[in-house]
């Protein structure tokens, strides 16, 4: 049932594809983290944007990522913006998770005590300095675990890129399967790879959580 020689033969190809999956994860997550922060900050800085932004976030979170990927890949060219498959996929991942991340940041900022703002005003700090030196250093550490969970979630969504033929792990496994008529080894290996990566990153997140909690309380 399980062919070890075949497993060893396809392993290097899958490893190469795994690099693309990880690349997509990292670029997508940086995009999500930055865009999410921008959304959260705009929402605080310009009050009237709160309602449109929350509708936008709700829209992004209530529709499937696969459809959003198709939307970027198939619909944008009709507006004259043609993206290659990898860019469209990573952009969709980034935008989708930015919606989730913005809610995480918002929770982080909401948890900062009002007194911190008032004390900064009393010290005559500008809004930007208050944000940079007072609010963000206190708001970010508690939300690192939540962001970490989204990093793992985003990683597990990368097989969706196979639907627009990005040669990541899943697409490569599918191609190997269709060429050799053996799906057992490639797809099981992909599953094992995701399991290992998720468990390892979960351990990292827990370590980061412990490290951050060691800092003195406010």
């Amino acid at each position, binding site marked *: 049932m399980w062919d070890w020689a075949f497993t060893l033969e396809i392993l290097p190809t899958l490893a190469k594809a795994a690099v693309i999956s990880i690349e997509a994860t990292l670029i997508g997550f940086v995009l999500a983290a930055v865009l999410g922060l921008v959304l959260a900050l705009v929402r605080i800085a310009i009050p009237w944007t709160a309602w449109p932004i929350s509708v936008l976030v*709700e829209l992004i979170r209530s529709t499937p990522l696969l*459809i959003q990927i198709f939307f970027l890949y198939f619909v944008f060219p009709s507006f004259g913006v043609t993206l290659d498959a990898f860019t469209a996929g990573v952009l969709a991942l980034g935008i989708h998770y930015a919606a989730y991340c913005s809610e995480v940041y918002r929770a982080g900022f909401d948890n900062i005590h009002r007194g911190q703002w008032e004390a900064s005003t009393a010290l005559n700090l500008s809004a930007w300095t208050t944000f940079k030196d007072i609010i963000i250093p206190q708001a970010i550490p508690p939300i690192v675990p939540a962001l970490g969970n989204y990093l793992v979630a985003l990683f*597990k969504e990368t097989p969706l890129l196979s639907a627009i033929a990005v040669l990541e792990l*899943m697409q490569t496994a599918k191609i190997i399967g269709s060429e050799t008529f053996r799906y057992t080894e490639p797809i099981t290996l992909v*599953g094992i790879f995701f399991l290992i990566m998720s468990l390892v990153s979960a351990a990292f997140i827990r370590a980061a959580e412990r490290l951050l909690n060691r800092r003195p309380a406010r």
Partner: protein
Amino acid sequence: MGIRTLIVMLVASILLIAFLALKPAYSLFLPGLLEGALLTAKITVLGCLLAVAMGVLAALGKLYGPAPIRWLANLYIEIFRGTSALVQLFWLFFVLPQFGISLEPFTVAVLGLGLNVGAYGAECVRGAVTSVARGQWEAATALNMTRAQMLRRIILPQAFIAMIPPWGNLFIELLKSTALVSLITLSDLAFKAQQMNQTTMKTIPIFTLVLLIYLAMSLVITIGMRYLEGRMSKGLARGRTV
């Protein structure tokens, strides 16, 4: 978001679909897409039922089961949370037949998504059960209840309310994951969209309608769960003040 805003969004999205349906460029695609949406809804409902059953079983197994059942529950939760939903669907669809078990695509869809979301659900059931105050257990022990009686009559009814919001999120996750079943040949909403897109190349109307239909469906779930939460916690508040 308030429930009123959600209802306004739902009504707006349905009106928008109705308005677009008046235009010939859009009305052409609507019947096919709605047919796909029906299959999506079917998979979502059955998947949710399976997910709830698996979530409760795995959580109770993990909390109160004897060692082998506890390990089994842990194994289930870690494997299904640790790997990607699409990989799980593909495994059930492509790999199981090689072990002599061939399932219908529809069965694979319900099974794959239900088991995947059930693993996440197990953790939220576990969280809700352990969040019930210790005193409730002690009081039930004082009344000489067996463990099954305590769980059934005292703990689970209270844990149920704490479970509603996270389950609501999971149901929406499940609805969105149904788009994956288009990749194992089921003609759901996402599949229909792709098929029509390939034959007509009218991408804008097709994908706009698809997004609106998914939005309306997940808003229905969100509003339903909010309503359920409101009703259930009303009963809890009354019970506490007595």
